[in-house]
């Protein structure tokens, strides 16, 4: 078996090791994407509100 194939084979436990890392990646990545998206949204919403208020003053 090639070195790379052996790495992905994980001593026969590939079906458990890789899903474990996959779950961790999916959870953390979606947390990061969600956090960043909500942050951008909040900044834009705040800017819009502050701009809308200025001319009326």
């Amino acid at each position: 078996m090639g070195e790379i194939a052996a790495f992905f084979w994980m001593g026969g436990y590939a079906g458990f090791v890789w899903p474990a890392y996959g779950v961790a990646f999916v959870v953390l990545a979606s947390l990061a994407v969600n956090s960043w998206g909500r942050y951008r949204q909040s900044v834009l919403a705040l800017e819009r509100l502050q701009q809308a208020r200025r001319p009326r003053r």
Partner: protein
Amino acid sequence: MINWLANPARFTRISTRTLPWCGWGAVVVIAAGLYWSLMLAPPDYQQGDTVRIMFIHVPAAWMALNVYLLVAVASAVALVWRHPLAEIAARAAAPIGAGFTLICLATGSLWGRPMWGAWWVWDARLTSVLILFFLYLGYMALVNAFDDPSRGGKAGSVLALVGVVNLPIIKFSVDWWNTLHQPASVMRLGGPKIDTSMLVPLLIMAAGFLLLFLALLLLRMRTILNERKAMALRLNAETPSSRAPRAAMVATHPGAE
């Protein structure tokens, strides 16, 4: 110290400076941790390559517990001293803690199947961590169940504090009961019991998770501050003449900008 931290304008300034360091630091440290745990660490003589699951399972479990502790302490500070940022910190931390708890449960299950022969057993450690996950979800649901964030915050804080009893149960469940889950091998009296070749990737991963948590926490706190500022502006715009007492209550920091 508490008063010094209570100023949201100062928080914004400090977090702007620290956030990129935490975020990029997390990326670098987790990448190093992955290389170490997947390439450099040797397979265990009993567990084989499934031991690599531990390099994310254990740090995720540490984060799950410690983030809950932070949520509870922040909730106590919010209830007792009305610290404006404490409640926001608890609110921002809870979903991240829930994420780490989910990782802990899922990876544990994926390790348990080949090693114990079961995806899940109702032993004390596993069950108490599952309860921790539900506590996080309950806190998140409760906090968002009210239109007025301060009422939701108060209700959530009480729940978070009640849930603290679960933390020592999780920590000591492996000593108090006869569990299938093994007892602590790193955080124990007399020092860690595992080999350096496996302790190092474990600790690198833990540091990476901590940095990632800090980055996400700061980002989510900034988001909530922005959202509350926007809410106050909107309420002020609706009632420009009546001085909007409700808006003043919602506004987290009337002084800053």
